[in-house]
């Protein structure tokens, strides 16, 4: 499981935890996150996330 960070605001998506508030169940891989996902903190798109090392 990996983590992905919004390059704009630093919000982190943790695949292990998912993001139930945005409809992403725990364990949802980044590749399976819909393309129209937007950062819950600053509103930028999926392209603006980069993988971060744990």
């Amino acid at each position, binding site marked *: 499981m990996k983590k992905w960070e919004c*390059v*704009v*605001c*630093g919000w982190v998506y943790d695949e292990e935890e998912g993001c139930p508030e*945005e*409809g992403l169940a725990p364990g949802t891989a980044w590749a399976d996150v*819909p393309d*129209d*996902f*937007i950062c*819950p*903190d*600053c*509103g*930028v*798109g999926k*392209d*603006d996330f980069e993988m971060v090392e744990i």
Partner: protein
Amino acid sequence: MSQTQVPVIVIGTGLAGYNLVKEFRKQDAETPVLMITADDGCNYSKPMLSTGFTKGKSASELAMADAGKMAEQLNVTIRTNTRVTSIDPETHTIFIGEESIAYDKLVLAWGAEPVAVRIEGDAGEHIFAINDLQDYANFRAELDDKKRVLVMGAGLIGCEYANDLSNGGYEVDVVAPCNQIIPNLLPEPAASAVQHGLEGLGVKFHLGPLVRRVTQTEQGLVADLSNGEQVETDIIISAIGLRPRLDLAVKAGLQVNQGICVDRSLQTSDADIYALGDCAEVDGKVLLYVMPLMASARALAKTLAGQPTDVSYGAMPIMIKTPVVPVVVSPPATEGLWDIERSGVNVKALCRDDAGALLGYALTGTCVADKLALNKELPAILK
């Protein structure tokens, strides 16, 4: 890479400058890049300045990396605390006082500046316009032993600060010469829901008047409003708006309007000078938000790497960081009919054209959850 190769010069190391160069390096690892900034070159996210208390972060904790780290990471040279004083497009030269530096391509990413306001009285040094991390650090240092904050302006930024400072335990007054909050973006019922939420935190709104005069007293500051009301406070934030920085572009003879005019390839009226972010007017649009800036950074990076690319903007929902009543809004570009459902602070306002196509929306409270579905229906801003 030849040592004498003339560099790409980028003026500005905000979100626009750094994200452009980050994208450029994905295309081109070699071409020398010189970045020049008037501040210390820390990489930080400007939208996060109005979330410091809510996220429990000090000014220095909002900085993600310093200039040295960024220079290494991006393989560029960064000159900090350096102000470009003029640009000569004819000779492809920028000037820093007496010093001249040649560029191959020049990118203007120097942002916008707060609208200046003249307030009478003797308390000018207690009025803060927060436009960068250093401004925020200065504000936080002065705020340290204070209890009350007056925010001038009830737009997006003013309301975000009001929420954040309330979360930080401060007593907040908001003064703005408008009938509703966030008038440029929100229909009235959505604005009133957010105002209600902020009032629940203790924020006091004074809508209608302006701050005329601020004077120092033994207990702090007194603001005289244009309707005769007086507000006691300790420190003031001016959040009355931003405008693109134009001075150097005008002096260089570049075409400007509200912003520095660029076409869809982000090219100014001079073929080797480009602009993006808060200083740019792209195809007639000045949009001081992160999404268009990121789209521009990606397109311009390709163009600079030799693959001419026009920018396009998709739908552009704007998140307003008022966590007490969260908001997401996509302002309609053309006139339409609003259909508004409201339940407490939860508002779903949809704007549609005659044929029923969605033009824009404003969602507050729990209704923000509908944004993903609605975004699919929104028209693109620049196709």
